[in-house]
Every structure is written in C-alpha cells, then in structure tokens.
C-alpha cells in the first residue's frame, strides 16, 4: 500500500516553438508522500505541472510527448477540470479567492450545495436555493481537518492575513471529494516564518491522511524538514530522484546548478584591464527600490571601474529592481554614487546624464518603441540626453547623420534587418536586443547596465550578445553591470557576482566558486550553517 504510486509521468517532452523545455522527464509520486520538485528558474517545473493539469497553454502549443498515469491508469487531461475530477488539486501561489465572499462561500465556490425550488425546476439548477448550513459545516470540517480551528467559516476573506488565505485555499482543495494529490507551488514564498512553519505542519497532516503532495519551492531547508523524496530537474532534464534521508542540502544545491560553465571571454588574450578598489564606478549605499515584486531592501555594493559585475539570484528577490531604480523608473531610497558623485535620482534622466546607459529586461515594454524605425530607436536616448543628431536652434533631427549612425550600428552588431527604416517590432528577439544595446552604446556610456540580456532570444544570438558585452568592456573600457537569472551566463562573463536574496546582497562570489556554494547562496543559506 505504502509503495503504490499515485502519479507517474513517463518520458515527458515538451517543445515551445522549437525550444525544448522538457526532455524525457520521468516523475513519480507515491501515495501519501511529500515529494519535493526542485530546480532553478526555467528548469521546467512549471511546464511539468502544466502538463499534469492539461493546461490550455500546453495543448495550444502542440501538446506534449510521453504518458501520464494516475492510480495506474493512463489519463489524458484536456483541461484543468479533468485533472480536478481525477482528484488532483492545486494550491495556487496567487490566491484565487473572492475577497468579498466569506470563508465557507470561497471553499464551496463552484461546488455549492443547493436544494431544488419551484423556480429551479423550471429554469435549471442555477436557481437552486443554497443550503448554507450544510456548506458551512463542510467548510468547518475541511478547516478542522487541517488543524485550522481558529479560522471562522463565516469570516470574510478580505482583510485576512495572507497566511490565513493560503490555509483557506488549502481547505478548499481538501474539501473536494476524492482528492488524491495536491500540488503546492511555492506556497511559503509570501508567508511569514511562523506561517510557513504552520503550513509545513499542515502538509504533514494532509500527507498522513494518504493524500500525496507535490511541493515546489526554492527553500532548501523547507524540503529538508518536510519532504520524503526529492526530484531534481535541470534545464528541462531529469537529474535524479532520491529519498531525502539519503541526500543533503549541499548535494541538492549542487545537483540543481551543476552545469558546465563555458568561458565566453577568450582567456588567451592578456587581460589589460586595470581594476582596483580605489577607482569605484558605481557605489550603492543602503540602496532601496520600491519596485513591486522586485523590492530592493537596503543594498551596499561597490562596483569597480572596468570590471564586469553580475547580479544573480532567484526571480522576485530584487535583482531586477536594482537597475530599474537607478534608471529612475521606481522610487528609490539611499545613495547611488557614480564615480564618487552622488546622484539625485528623483530627477528624471539623472543616471543617463552621468554616463550610465541601461538595457532593460523588458525589451518590448520598456526597451523599444516597437512601431518606430530601428534608426529612431537607436538614436533616441542620445538625441534626448546629449542633443546628439540634432541641428539648429529648434533642434531638428539630422536625418543623414542618424541614418549613417544607424547603418554603422546595424553593421557592427550584425542586426539582421531590411534596413534602418524597418520597425523595431518586426524584428526577432535577438535582433531587438541588439537594437537596445545599440541605443545604449550610442550614448557612449561609462557604465552599461544590462538586465536579462539573453532573455527570450535563441542560443546563437545569446552568444553574440554576451561576446559583444565582453568586447565593449575590454575594448572600450566600459564598466558593465549585468543582471541575469542565468547563473551560467553570469559565471561565464563576470569578474564578480553578487547573489541577491530577499532584496539584499547575500554574498559576492567569484565565477569559479563551486556549484554547491552557488546553489546555497541562491537559496539564501550560509554554507557554514549547513556544514555544522
């Protein structure tokens, strides 16, 4: 009985537009166990869960390969409802609760208990009368079964602490009859420490009732406390499946990261850069950025002139906020010094005027004027900030000069297009990124900040972009600050890498530090704490 497998996914492969995100992944969950699913951002965890639930995003993009068995029977879920009927539930990261409804109403949402009335006999069961007492009793049962006696079933959801909402969400899944498997997708990400502990306890209670749990999290210590088994994915591939007892935090961290780091910069060239602690290009002092979802909560970093400095870390930990704050897109507190001069970031364009150029992580949203020509995109910032490419007292565009410059950039960066007049929106991702880079370089910056430079572009273009970054650093002496979710990328290019966790610099590391050290740092765990 104990060893009976409740879910078994075999040889799962999935392709999005020619990009293989899952490669022959095997995944097996036994009855009543807590099974941790681990992997970096983009390792394929979400895609695997989308396959399991038969999400439309899977079927709309050509389906998947492989087989899924629930309780030993082959299934083919066409939509999440099929999965629900088969006894698989999901506890969402973003709460799917209606704030104005009370707890019982939310728990019974879509599965209300009614009894027929005269009207409903004529017009259908949508007009049934509600059996409030029965519904409240069911909700109470569900809440009690996860040990949440202190949540009142008639309390309104709006205004509840976040942790309580999470518990209501869980109760709703438990209340569904015949539930066999529950997926928790980063449930503790938004919880306080005590709430998270409580949640882990509840997970044990649920598992003890014979319901299996798939637990997706980035927090290594949580899975060490609560999980029975762990499956690790990396770059869409199955790495290993092990009982927790036979592994360690360090080993898991290593397995998650473990990848060949390819040096992109040609080491045979002598490194002529002179980098010293005396010449600081960019200094952050108690730097805070109020960017929703990417809060920076007090950072102190010194970036030396001439180096390539990386910011890494998991999504939502704040690394993206760093660049956006400096560029004035979000409110900032603390001090930012550029070559010793403190910037007044409440003034728009302050960073640009002080020699910082920025390539945004949100290419289509922030980085480009999609309906304008490549030429217009490339010259825009330089024109607005430095009055470059304009003539006369009315600052009329110097079309000839702009065109010449755009052609030069197109050639230098190998932007594949029909000419400078093509609209930026019609280019491929990689070429759009090159246009963004061209715009930044046109400003002749002393510091170049690039955020997620390779997001959403194909492998060939990725390499070109990274090599180009290295080249402008070596040849033009531009200090490059690179923010990226791709550790491999950072480690192949950067001189130093700051790992950001919970809005702070957790640790500044060297690119050749061991994989395990990176894995632990990403999870925000001190090595010393683990070794003990």
């Amino acid at each position, binding site marked *: 009985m104990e060893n009976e497998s409740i879910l078994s996914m075999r040889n799962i492969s999935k392709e999005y537009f020619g990009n293989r995100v899952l490669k022959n992944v095997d995944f097996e969950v036994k009855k009543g166990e807590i099974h941790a699913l681990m992997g970096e951002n983009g390792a394929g965890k979400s895609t695997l869960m989308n396959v399991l639930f038969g999400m439309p995003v899977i079927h709309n993009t050509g389906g998947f390969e492989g087989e899924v068995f629930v309780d030993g029977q082959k299934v083919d879920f066409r939509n999440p409802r099929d999965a629900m009927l088969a006894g698989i539930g999901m506890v969402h990261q973003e709460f799917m609760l209606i704030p104005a409804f009370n707890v019982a109403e939310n728990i019974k949402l879509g599965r209300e208990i009614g009894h027929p009335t005269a009207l409903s006999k004529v017009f259908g069961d949508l007009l049934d009368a509600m059996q409030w007492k029965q519904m409240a009793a069911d909700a109470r049962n569900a809440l009690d079964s996860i040990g949440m006696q202190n949540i009142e079933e008639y309390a309104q959801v709006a205004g509840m602490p976040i942790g309580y909402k999470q518990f209501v969400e869980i109760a709703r899944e438990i209340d569904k009859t015949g539930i066999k498997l529950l997926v928790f997708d980063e449930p503790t990400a938004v919880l306080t420490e005590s709430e998270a502990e409580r949640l882990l306890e509840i997970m044990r209670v649920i598992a003890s009732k014979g319901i299996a749990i798939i637990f997706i999290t980035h927090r290594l210590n949580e899975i060490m406390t609560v999980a029975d088994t762990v499956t690790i994915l990396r770059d869409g591939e199955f790495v290993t499946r092990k009982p927790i007892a036979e592994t360690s935090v360090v080993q898991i961290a290593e397995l998650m990261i473990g990848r060949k780091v390819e040096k992109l910069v040609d080491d045979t060239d002598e490194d002529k850069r002179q980098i010293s602690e005396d010449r600081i290009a960019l200094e952050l002092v108690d730097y805070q950025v109020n960017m929703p979802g990417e809060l920076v909560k007090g950072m102190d970093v010194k970036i030396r002139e001439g180096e390539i400095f990386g910011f890494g870390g998991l999504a939502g930990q704040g690394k993206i906020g760093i660049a956006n704050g400096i*560029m*004035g*897109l979000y409110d900032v507190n603390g001090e930012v010094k550029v070559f010793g001069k403190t910037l007044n970031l409440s003034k*728009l*364009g*302050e*960073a*640009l*005027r002080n020699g910082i150029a*920025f390539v*945004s992580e*949100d290419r289509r*949203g*922030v*980085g*480009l*004027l*999609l*309906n*304008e020509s490549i030429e*217009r995109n490339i010259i*825009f*910032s330089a*024109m*607005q*900030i430095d*009055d470059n490419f*304009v003539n006369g007292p*009315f*600052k*009329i*565009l110097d*079309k000839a000069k702009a065109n010449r410059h755009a052609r030069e950039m197109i050639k230098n960066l190998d932007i594949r297009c029909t000419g400078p007049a093509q609209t930026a929106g019609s280019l491929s991702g990689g070429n759009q990124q090159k246009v963004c880079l061209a715009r930044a370089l046109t400003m002749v910056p002393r510091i170049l900040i690039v955020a997620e430079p390779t997001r959403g572009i194909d492998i060939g273009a990725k390499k070109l972009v990274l090599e180009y970054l290295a080249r402008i650093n070596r040849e033009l002496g531009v200090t490059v600050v690179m923010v990226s979710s791709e550790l491999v990328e950072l480690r192949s290019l950067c001189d130093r890498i700051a790992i950001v966790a919970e809005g702070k610099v957790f640790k500044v590391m060297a690119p050749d530090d061991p994989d395990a050290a990176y894995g632990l740092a990403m999870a925000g765990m001190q090595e010393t704490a683990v070794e003990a």
Partner: protein
Amino acid sequence: MNKFKKVIEDIGLPRLIIGAFFLVLVVSSVFLGLKPASIFSDILRRVVMYSILVLAMVPGVQAGIGLNFGISLGIAAGLFGSVVAMEIAFRVGWTENMNAGGLWLTLGTALLLSIVLATLFGSLYGMLLNRVKGSEMTVATYVGFSIIAFMNIVWLMLYFSNGDLIWPLQGRGMRSTVSLAGSFGGILSDPVKVQATQPAWLQWLAIKAGDITLPIGAIILLTVLCILVWFFFRSKAGIAMSAAGENQLFTRSSGINVDRMRIMGTALSTVLGAIGIIVYASIYGFLQLYNAPLMMGFASVAAVLIGGATVTRANIANVLIGTLLFQGILSMALPVINEVVNIGTLPEIMRIIISNGIILYALSKTKGGRAA
C-alpha cells in the same frame, strides 16, 4: 492576388470603401448635370476650411491623449479671441473704412489672443488629462461639452459695444451668429472681398479662374501650418512627444517627463484648434457662437480616422486624405441627393444620416492602413 491584398491592406479597407463612395458621388453628380467647376470649388473650400481643425488632432494623438474630442476648448478660445479682437477693432476704429491694414490687424489680434488663451486652456486641460490616464477620450468629450455650456454663459454676459457682435435690441450679449463681412471674413478665400479690400499686390489671396474659386491665402496658411507641425515632429521635442505617446516607460527610461510631453501635446492641439476655428470662420464668413461648435470635435475625429489614423498614431497625410474624403462626401451629398429625391427636408435629413454614418463607421474602424 497577394499583391492586390497588400495594396488593400496598405490603403486600409475603410478608406477604400469611403473613397469609392466619394467617387460614386462625384461621377453621379456629373451625370446629374451639376457643374464640375462649382463642385470642385465647393470641395476645395470645405477641405481648407476644416483641415486645420483636423490637423489639431495630430499632436494630441501623438502625445498619447488619444483623439482630442475636447477640441471645443480650442474652438472656444478661438471664438473668444475673435470677438474680443473685433470689439477692440470697433473701439479703436481699425475696420471703419474696411482698409486692408485694419482687417489684417483684427485677424492678427484675434489669432494672437486666441493662441495665448488656448495655450493656457490647453495646459490646464492637459494637466486634467494626466489625472485621468486611460479614459482621456471620455473625459475629453465631456470637457468639450462643458466648455461649450460655460461659454454660452460668457457669450450672454459680455458687455460689448460693437453692433456686429451684440443683439441689436438687447444692447448686450453676443449674437448667435456674428457676420464677419465687415471684418476679416473672406480675406483669405473670397475673391470679391479680396478685390474690394486688398491692395494690388495682395490680389492673389483669392482668385477666380473661370468658374473655379481658389482660396490661395487659406491654402498657403494651411500649408505653412502643416509644414510647421511636420517639422515639429522631427524636432527633439516632437520626437520625445511621439515617444511619450507610444511607450511611456521607454520615454521615462530615457529621462523624459511623460506628463509634461502630454501637456505640451494637448496645448498644441488646443492652439491648433483655436487657429482652426478662426480660419474656418474667416472662410465661412461667420462666427458661430453658443451651441454651434458642440459637435465639431466629432467631425474632426471622424476625418482623421477616415484618413487612416489610429487612436495612437496620426500624421499629416491622414489629416489631408481624411478631410478630403469626409468633407468631400458631405459637400457632394447634398446637391446629389437634392437632384435624386427632392422632397421637403429629406435631402438635409439624408445628409445628416450620411455624415453621422461616416463618423460611426470611422469610429468602429480605428485600425487604419499602414501607408498613408
């Protein structure tokens, strides 16, 4: 076949259909025995009359406030500037003997006052629109209606003494229609007026070639304004404004104050509206006060949309093509229908149905074509 499809896509289906309708009207008018010369003159006059009001849509759209239904604000400024200029002219005696200098002085004063007023109104209005981002067009429509109502009160209260302006028996308050015959009416477009008032070297301002009337002065003014707007959108400020209208975050990240650009665009649109109504009135020969300008915004919006503009992008070609099609159809429709069904006020009713039909059609087809 593909080429054919591409051509349709480039021109835009709405423009093809409306253009075809326009051609049908032109051809049938010839068959119905209407004089081509007078039809041509009529279309030309109407297009020039309305073009600047339509041109006023461009800065608004480019700056990101959408189609400026609140153009009535500029119209109000233009009308107010005109009546004040006429009152000044009356008190100083500029227009007493209809000499060219006095007429130009009146027109110049009207333009100057209106532009100052429109800049002020437009800036305040721009600040308002910055507070209602996302629903600018709805708010603009009601601002447009409100200013007309407000101006109604102002018109009634003005204590002027120029007999051309005030109600003859009342002794105060503006007339609902003020004739410009004794002022700057027609000096850019009417051959008779030009001949009577202008010196020899300005006789070219409006000429009659056979049966065709050419309002050269107004055409030149329109051309100059188009070129100015075109140049503006190639200047640093204009390019920043276009960017603000297309992508606010992009613009911010390049160190540009998006809100200021939007205020600038709104003010520019309002100023063009003010100039537009003065030119309109000058060609038409009358200042129409009170509720007359209530729906003018809709005609401008419809014209620029038919010309191929979208809610987010508009250019000068859109303005000229759109005004030609829209005003062309309106000026053709009445005589043609008159010939076909001449029963009471039916032709006028048909004209209203057609004009509102085109507006409705334009608003429902805001996609436009790619090439202008």
